């Protein structure tokens, strides 16, 4: 990997300046690649355009963060709440879109005041540019200048504060870590949705089969407790479920520590008896109101039971139990992906 090649004629300065201006910060090394093409200026411009657009596309994708887009859209839209809807939507959309390119340009971002100021200037310019475009194309959709100025100033100030915070939390580009974290996030999202469905089912069952206050409290409280106990007990560690802040020395790889902690928060094994017990308790508690309805029917005291609701909830319980088997398989896959990422990191560390 040593640079043994001889100096080549540099591309014209104006091409170099334009490429530097548009190229994302993390891809500026590609400017050096352009020096390998001894081409006349028009053809070199074509190559440079291809390089710049490919790099921007990649880094826009890598820097894209859905939560950040939502947060920025909300914060930016607040000062425009009392303005006509369509011009406000155009202004907010253009600023949010241009800020995505800005994210790609500065990835991973430093969260410094200078960067935050530049962010707000870029966003404000996008809003003004969108209004200028409207002035040419559809003047009736333009916003009143006073409302536009107020909205832009307040909106961009709040967005720049928000971005300064977000950029402090943006991790460096690390494909192994990001892939493993993506699996972890998706798995937990699906588990959380499944848990919400279980809780909804238990409350619906409580209504369908009326009972005492203590029973209702226990039925509402026990499933969540037993689920997290089952999850905690099978992870075979005394650490917190989502513990991330381990003491880091020069011998520890913080990414490895983070990924190992993520593994502990997933469903890892099913051979721990106590964990299996709580898993069973979870489903028994979920089914308890339905079992008690059948008991009352046999006992001849089922006058207040809502039978259509009980039947629906039974079907939902069977579906949720089936989904749980699939969720456990998903956890196994997420664990495999994290293990692969850890192995790849170790292999990388050995090869360098």
């Amino acid at each position: 990997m040593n640079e043994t090649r001889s100096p080549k004629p540099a591309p014209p300065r104006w091409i170099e300046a334009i490429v530097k201006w548009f190229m994302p910060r993390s891809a500026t090394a590609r400017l050096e690649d352009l020096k390998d093409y001894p081409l006349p200026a028009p053809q070199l411009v074509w190559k440079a355009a291809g390089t710049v657009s490919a790099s921007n596309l990649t880094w826009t994708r890598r820097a894209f963060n859905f939560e950040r887009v939502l947060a920025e859209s909300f914060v930016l839209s607040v000062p425009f709440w009392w303005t006509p809807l369509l011009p406000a939507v155009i202004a907010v959309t253009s600023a949010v879109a241009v800020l995505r390119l800005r994210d790609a340009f500065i990835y991973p971002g430093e969260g410094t005041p200078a960067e935050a100021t530049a962010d707000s200037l870029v966003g404000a310019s996008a809003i003004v540019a969108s209004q200028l475009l409207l002035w040419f194309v559809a003047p009736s959709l333009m916003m009143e200048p006073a409302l536009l100025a107020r909205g832009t100033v307040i909106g961009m100030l709040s967005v720049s504060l928000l971005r300064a915070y977000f950029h402090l939390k943006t991790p460096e580009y690390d494909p192994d870590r990001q892939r493993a974290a993506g699996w972890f996030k998706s798995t937990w999202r699906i588990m959380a949705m499944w848990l919400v469905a279980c809780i909804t089912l238990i409350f619906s069952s409580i209504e369908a089969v009326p009972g005492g206050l203590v029973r209702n409290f226990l039925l509402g409280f026990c499933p969540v407790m037993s689920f997290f106990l089952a999850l905690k007990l099978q992870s075979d560690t005394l650490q917190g479920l989502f513990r991330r802040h381990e003491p880091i020395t020069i011998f520890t790889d913080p990414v490895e520590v983070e990924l190992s902690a993520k593994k502990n928060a997933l469903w890892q094994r099913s051979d721990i008896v106590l964990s299996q017990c709580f898993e069973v308790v979870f489903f028994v508690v979920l089914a308890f109101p339905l079992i008690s309805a059948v008991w009352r029917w046999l006992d001849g005291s089922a006058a207040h039971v809502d039978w259509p609701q009980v039947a629906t909830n039974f079907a939902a319980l069977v579906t949720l139990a089936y989904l749980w088997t699939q969720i456990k398989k998903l956890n196994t896959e997420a664990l495999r992906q994290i293990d692969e990422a850890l192995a790849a990191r170790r292999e990388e560390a050995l090869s360098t």
Partner: protein
Amino acid sequence: MPSLKKMAAGDENMKEDVLGQFEQLVLTAVLSLGEDAYGPKIHEKVIELAEREVSIGSVYITLDRLEDKGHLASKPGRPPQWGGQARRYYRLRAAGQRALRQAFETSRRLQQTAEPMWEFKT
């Protein structure tokens, strides 16, 4: 019902390791260039292997995507003596080698199945 695994793997980076033809070309180019695999060289090699004109932009996009999938790794070389920035050099990772081998095996199977048919037809 779509499997939960597919739902969770919605992200482009997390999809299964099946390589497209252009990805195979780029990985083969990186493999054949060894220690000297950087942007323009890979571009040149891809053109040679594909026997058609290919834009530098599509090579860079594919290199980036393969890096995201964990098939390739890149790191900066030494900065040139006469000034300027250090280039990024690419190399195949174990996952990339596995995926490429799998793609070649599939192609070989296809060839073995199709070849007798061609002979029969001609």
